[in-house]
Structures are given as C-alpha cells and as structure tokens.
C-alpha cells in the first residue's frame, strides 16, 4: 500500500490559520471558549473539537528573534501505535484505510477512560483526544470524506502559501526531498521529520524542539513504541501458552 501523504513545508507557513479554521468548517467542529493568555496560539492545544492547530513558538538567539509556526495534526503513521494499542485492548475504535493509509477513529465506538489514556500515551506526537461525556475519541481523519471523492483535505485546499500539500505518497516524498535539498543550502539544520514512518511529513529548518516538543518523535516516543510492541506481543505469548 503506497497510499497518500501530507507534505507540510513549515518554511512557507505564515500562520494565517486558514488550515485550522477550514478543518473546523469541513468537519463541523465546535468553536471552543478560549481566552487570551499572552500568546497568539489559540486554542491552547488540540482537543476533541480541535484536530488541527497552528503552534506558535518564539525563541531568542543571539539577540535575534525567531518565530516558528507548526501546523500540528495527526501523522497518520504507517504502523500506528494508537491502533495497535487499541487492538491490544480489544477495541475496534481505530482503523486504518487500506487504500489511503488514513488512520481513522470511529465516532461510533466508545472508549473507556483508562483505555484512552493508554492509547494517548502510545502516540509519540500526543494527538489522540477524547470526550469525557460521549466517551468518543477524535483527531484528524485526513478529511476522509473528501479524499474518497478525489478532493484535497480542507486544510490543504485552503492553504495560500504552499505549506500544506497532499497526494500520492511517492510524489509527496519526492516533493519533500526536493524542497529539503533547496533549503539545506541555506539552513543546515533543515530536516524532514520521521518521513519514513508517517504520512504527515513535516519539513523544518531548525531543531524540531524549537517548534514544538512533540514535533518529532523523540526518545520517549520510541520507548512508547517499544511498549506498544510489547503489549502486542504479550497476548500472543499468552495464546501460545494456552495452545502449548
């Protein structure tokens, strides 16, 4: 399965937040109550009603300021730890579409608090969210209803700068690599984030930690994945024990 991918070129992002709002519009997500707390990033974090969020990061370096924008969303992992975790817990709440690779949370399947906690912890990018009242999980679904009809995801369609791109995985990786090569000459730290394992490929021009603590999969994330694999293996062991 080659499937689809996003290529998000943060070097072009102007934080207009068109993607953030377009996502809410297409998916009819509620506007949430927010306050100004000394930062333009708002809502403060992803939530059950916010699947796409432009994160603002201001850093000082040698008396000069840098202001990075990171339009956060689900990475649609090739091998999604959240899905495997859910499966290990016996939940069918998370599926992966065979054709596109979209990782989708089924809005009809309830998940208990303790299970959700494990699912969220399994995600190296802290994406999964859950509504306490309905016990439903939510996150970016790759605008599945749009891409199935050959349309671009709403966030990509609305982006005026070429930051958000979407298409066949090989084309997106090629585009990402080409852009990376151009930018490497100017920004030595330019890099693609976890391109080999996710379908939402970010390009950054600086240390990913300067954008957002979960911009790239970090060591903790790898540990989490290891944990997931352990969880996956355990039931098998148990099973073999029974048949053995």
């Amino acid at each position, binding site marked *: 399965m080659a499937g689809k991918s996003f290529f998000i070129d943060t070097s*072009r992002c*102007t*934080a*207009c*937040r*068109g993607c*953030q*709002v377009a996502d*809410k*519009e297409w998916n009819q997500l*509620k*506007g*949430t*109550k*927010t*306050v*100004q*707390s*000394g*930062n*333009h990033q*708002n*809502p403060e974090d992803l939530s059950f009603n916010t699947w796409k969020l432009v994160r603002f990061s*201001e*850093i*000082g370096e040698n008396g000069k*300021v*840098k*202001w*990075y*924008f990171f339009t956060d969303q689900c990475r649609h992992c090739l091998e999604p730890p959240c899905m495997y975790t859910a499966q290990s817990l016996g939940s069918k709440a998370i599926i992966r579409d065979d054709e596109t690779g979209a990782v989708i949370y089924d809005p009809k399947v309830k998940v208990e608090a303790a299970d959700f906690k494990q699912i969220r912890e399994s995600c190296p990018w802290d994406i999964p969210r859950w509504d306490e009242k309905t016990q439903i999980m939510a996150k970016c679904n790759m605008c599945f209803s749009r891409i199935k009809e050959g349309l671009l995801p709403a966030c990509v369609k609305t982006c*005026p*700068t*070429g930051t958000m791109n979407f298409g066949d995985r090989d084309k997106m990786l090629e585009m990402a690599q080409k852009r990376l090569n151009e930018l490497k000459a100017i920004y030595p730290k330019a890099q693609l984030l976890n391109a080999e394992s996710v379908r939402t490929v970010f390009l950054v021009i600086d240390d990913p930690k300067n954008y957002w603590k979960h911009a790239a999969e970090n060591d903790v994330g790898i540990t989490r994945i290891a944990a997931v694999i352990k969880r996956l293996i355990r039931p098998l062991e148990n099973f073999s024990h029974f048949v053995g």
Partner: protein
Amino acid sequence: MTNSWTDIGVSDCVLIMGSNTAENHPIAMKWVLRAKDRGGKIIHVDPRYTRTSTKADIYAPLRSGTDIAFIGGMIKHILDHDLIQKDYVVNYTNASFIVNPKYDFKDGLFSGYNAEKRSYDKSMWAFEKDEKGLPKKDPTLQNERCVYQLLKKFYSRYDLDTVSSITGTPKEDLIKVYEAFAATGKPDKVGTMLYAMGWTQHTVGTQNIRAASMVQLLLGNMGMAGGGVNALRGESNVQGITDHALLYHIIPGYNPSPNAADVSLEKYNEKNTPKTADPMSVNWFSNRPKYITSYLKSMYGDNAGKNNEFGYQWFPKLDVGQNASWMFMFDEMGKGKFSGLICMGMNPACSSPNSNHTREALSKLDWMVTIDLFESETTNFWKGPAMDPKKVKTEVFLLPACSYVEREGSISDSARMAQWRNKAMEPVGESKSDGQIVHELYMKVKALYEKEGGAFPDPILKLKWDYAKDGKVDTHLVAKDINGFFLEDIAEHPFDKKAYKKGTLVPSFVFLLADGRTSCGNWIYSGSYTEAGNMMARRDKTPVATANIFPKWGFAWPVNRRILYNRASVDLQGNPIDPKRAVITWDAANKKWVGDVPDGPAPPMGLEGGKEPFIMKPDGVASIFGSGLGDGPFPEHYEPLECPIEKNLLSPERINPTTALFKEYKFTTCDPRFPFVGTTYRVTEHWQTGIMTRYQSWLVETEPQMFVELSEELAELRGIKNGERVSVSSPRGKVEAVAIVTKRWKPLKVAGLTIHEIGLPWCFGWLVPKDGGESANLLTPTIGDANTAIPEYKAFLVNVEKLPAKGKGR
C-alpha cells in the same frame, strides 16, 4: 497598485514597509514567496517583528512615523553611490528640469509658506519655462537648480547617523536594506515595494508614498514587471469603492468634485483640464471633458442636454475650501450640525480615531439609519458603555443587508482588477443587497419629492434611474451603465472612423465624446462590459509569460492594462529594458506594441511620432520633484502629532506644517505621563472592526480578546508578566488588554533615548464577545494626513500599567 499581484512573483527584491502582508493580505504572500523561490530577496521594515518578518531575508525595525527619514536615507545612499538608472532618470523623469529660483527649503519649510493658513503657495515651486512654454532642462544633471541637484542637496541631510537617531533603526540594518534594494537599479534587476496603512495613516502619509515612488523612479523600477509601488488595499473591494468615488473630493473615475466656484460646466472643465505645450506629451487628462459629459449623461439621461450644461447645475457641489472627510464630518456632528446619518457597512464607533468622541457625536443626531449584516457598536451605540439610553435622542434604524455570497456583482482588487462574482444563495430573512436597499430608498425619496415638492427637487427627480426590472435591481444593468454606451447612431466615429449603433456598449473610453452622444458611469471601467460580453467574468489563465501577468482573467482598469506606466519599461526604441521580464515590446515591422496593453498606442519616445511614457502627467515624465501635493515638492520628515522626543532632529518644524489641527481635541507630546509610542493594527483572524468575524466562533477562539504587545524590556520596567491584564491609556481614553510580552518587539535608541513602542489591535468592541474588550481606537488622536486627512492611527503616545488580577484564569 501600479502592478498586478502576479508579477510580484518575478521580482528580485520585495521591500515590504508599512504593511504586514502575511497577516493582513495572507493570499498576497503567495506571490511574495514565489519571488523568494526564484532567489528574490524579501525585506520587511516594521516596528514589530510580525508573521511577515518571519519570511523576510532582512528585517529592520523602525519607530512608527519615521518612514520618510528611513526612505530619505535610502535616496541619499542611491545618489551618493550613483546607483541610479541614469537613462531612465534622464529620459523618463523630471530630474533634468530646472526649478525657478524662488524655490527654497530652509528650517523645515519650503518657500511660499503661510503660517496662518498652514498652507503653501505652490506657484513658488514652478519649473522655468523656455520661449515655447516647455520646462527648461539640463540632461547632464549638472545645473545647480535642476531637480537632480536639488534632490541631492535636500537629502544630503539624511545621513546614516541622523536617520538612525530618528528612526531608531540600527545603522547596520539601514545599510543592509539600502544596499539590497538599491541593487535593483541595474537594467536587468527589478525591485517592488508593498505598502498598506502603515504608510498612509500618518500626518505625512501621502509623502511616505511619494518618497517610495521617487526611489522607484531613481532605480528605474516603475513600469517594470516585478516593480512599482503597490498599495495593498485594506478591504477586498475598497479599490472599487474608491474607483466609484465614495470619497467627498472626487466623482467616479478620480475626477475632482466640483465646488461652488465652478459655476458652469465650462469653468469646471477649464479648471480641471490640464494643458501642455509639449507635442510629445499625451497629456491624457486633456480628455477630461469627454468623461465628464458622458458621466453627466449617465446621471441625468435624456434630461441632460447641451441646452442645460448636461445637467451640471443639478450636480451637488462642495463649498469652496470645504473638507468633508471623515474627521471633519464627525467634528461637525459632535457640534450638532447634522440631523441624520446613513451608515452603510461601517462601524465608526470602533473604527474612528478617538472613538469616544465619535460615539458622543452619534448621540447628537436626530436619526441614524444603519445598513449592516449584524448589530455593531455603532448600531447599538446608545446602549454602550458610558451611554445613558434615556439621554440619547438619536433614533436608530437597522436595515439588514445581505452578505456578498447572496448577491452578484463585481469586486475590484488592489491591482485594479474587477472580477465578477456570482450569487451562491438567496438573501436570508428580510435582508437585501446594498444595491436593492439604495434603489428602494431612492424610489421613496423620489415619490416624496413628487408629492410634496421641496427647495430643489430636480437633482432627485431628473436622475436617470433604470437599474431595476419589476422593482428588482439587475446588477448587469448597472455594470453596463458604468461601461457606457452610444446614445445616437454614429456614422463615422472620430476615433476610428467606424460606424456605431445607438444603444451599443462602447468598446473603451477612447470612444467617449464630450458632445452628449455617449453615456458612461465611470470612464476608467469603460471596456469592462462590452458587446463582447462581461469582461470581468473572464477566467482564462493565458499569461504574458515574461511579465507573469494574466490579461484574460477579469478586467483591470484602465483598458485592461495590468502594469501602469509600462511605456517606461522599454528603451527609447521600444525594446524592453529587461528582456527576460518584458512587459511590452515595440514590433517595428508591424508598427505596434505586443505584450500588456501599452500606455497608449503611440510609438516609443525615440521613434517618429513617439510619445513620452508617463501619459497622465502634462510633462509626459514622472515627477521626482512634485508640485502637486500640499506639503512640499520633496518628502520631508516631520514627527507624528504625538511623539516621544522633544524636537524633530531635522528641523525646527516638529510636525507637518500643513496638517489641519483640531485644537479643541486632546493631544500631547513628549509627555512623561504617556511615555511610550503606541500603534494600532489588525490581525488575520478578524475583519476590520470585527463585525463580520466577532460573531464567528471559529475565528473568535483564535483571537478571543483584546491584547497589547510589548517588549520584555518594557514589561520588566512596568512589572508586567506575560498574560497579565494591563491598562493602556492615552489623553483620550483607556482600554484594558492582556499583555503579550514578546521578543518580537525591542526598544529602540532614538535621539539618544531608549524608546519603547507598544501595539494593539482595533478589531474588538464592547458588544461581542462579551469578554472581548474594547477597540484600540479609544486611544487614537484626531489628526490626519495633510493631503488626504486619513487619520494618524499609527503613531501616538500611551502609558501602560499593570492592573490588579480579576478572578481566576485571567
């Protein structure tokens, strides 16, 4: 904009100054980034490091209100290092013209100043003329009274130390910007400038833009693809509004409004039709009488004839010397001189400078009709803060207008391009389109005049008003009326000797006549809706590839020209100065231009029958020395009305000596009670005063509440932490805001002092959301530009103080 949006993408250098393009014109950044992709340099000069700055190769800070000092320094840099594009400057500008000896500049004043009237006798700045009446020239640019030498002398005062001390911009940043932009003075390089309200909203606003134009002329960047001076207009259709004259001083197509001294059509035409003795000058405005007669015919139809000056006497006139612009209007309203106001799609209670005064002024009216989508701080002013509804006599009506998706019509963007927009749905509820509301209002007023008579009913009763079918306005009829049509069969038209039938649409404004045989609602839109169809509805992406312009998409005035002054993009023989970015080229074999629609069909200047490039100027060339503006032929730095330093470092004249003063209003300067510079701006997430966005939860959640941005240094000085509530005050008012303490704002060294600047948005208001806060315009002063009277929203004095915490979470 002199240019189109798309050709910004081929520029070598984009100087963004007085504009926060990324936040206020997000789509425009597409073209800026295209330029960057091709290796172009992006420069952003702004008091605050914004989302635009993040995409710039060079960012330079400056103090609000010091742009002329900054640009003046650039002019000096260009002249000192002889970086001008000399052929262009000599042939296509008035740099070689000799100025008469009465012109002088001393102690901040040009010759001819009248302190009492706060105005100049501009005849003191005239050029010397030869026996034929042509300006005397010295093409070697050596004569000490030629424009080039006067320019050099004038800006010799703008050395790096002085400029840096005024602007606060570090010297190394000034040099970086000057070098990068001046590098576009070569024939195969081009630079463009993008500006917005950061340049206009100052007491020296018009001169900010003139200074920019002068740089572009010196560098040969005007008329070029990827060049020009580009005003990013503040609203999607504000260009259309200006084109159709929603300002007091002009009538449609930028023709001057008549005043009481223009007692006849003949007098009006005599005054407003420029003459030239230069046979090579096209002097386009010699055609003005054709546009005026055709306009009057469109106003009064068959009621207008040669016998009654085409209805000129019915046309409204200003008083002589009357300034009927915004602040003057609200000043008079505050004095009780108005009985009623129709307020259409505006929210002056939040958008006016000194809004507390504006809100007071509204309470002096007998009635106010507001036409808007939603309730606003204006529609509900009588129950706003500090208002006692019992004491407000104003009777307020709110007529529900429909939104743009519920009506069809044209929309004109900053690049002068009109695009037709279809209707997506019927208006909801009882709402109606603006056109329909105006139509119904007119029909009622007319009926009343017919029934009751009045002092002067003819201006209403004699109007031609044929825009509706069965009471419903048809926008296509309006568009056709604007384009213009023949009123009689014409056997042999003077322009092309061809025959035209009565009732057919004119192909363009060159077919308009001064004798009453044509009608045209707005000459610059002539050609937008012709017998070939609605040109504004065209959607063909075929480009003029070299210039990256798209002539078959929509319609750009005038005559679908995408790049103004494009005759200056070629050499004297008509060859593109920069062939890889050719805008137009003279095809010598076929004796015609190819490429963009040229500024007139005449051959290039160096060939037989050739004409000079700047066809709108009587001299045929562009004005480096301009005697048209009220505040001087060269832009000079003056401080904002409210500035943090005691004096202007360049002259004894602290503020623009020709700006009208509203002395009864509160203002201050160099005042320890208000020690910081304040400025105002918009945010991407809200539209103007926010009436179209503050009811929208997806947008409100992104920018929910009033904030003030300030530096870490100022925050420390005032003991303010990020996210804390503060009060920002000026002599006129006070607003509460949440502090955003940021590294993106830095104190500047100005005149040896450390100067702090803060900024706040004006998109909030007391009505909605309830905890959103108030408009920054409670703070801004009543003062404006000397030429346009646009208010000085961008620089004033404030104080910032920490407020006690109010409950949790705030």
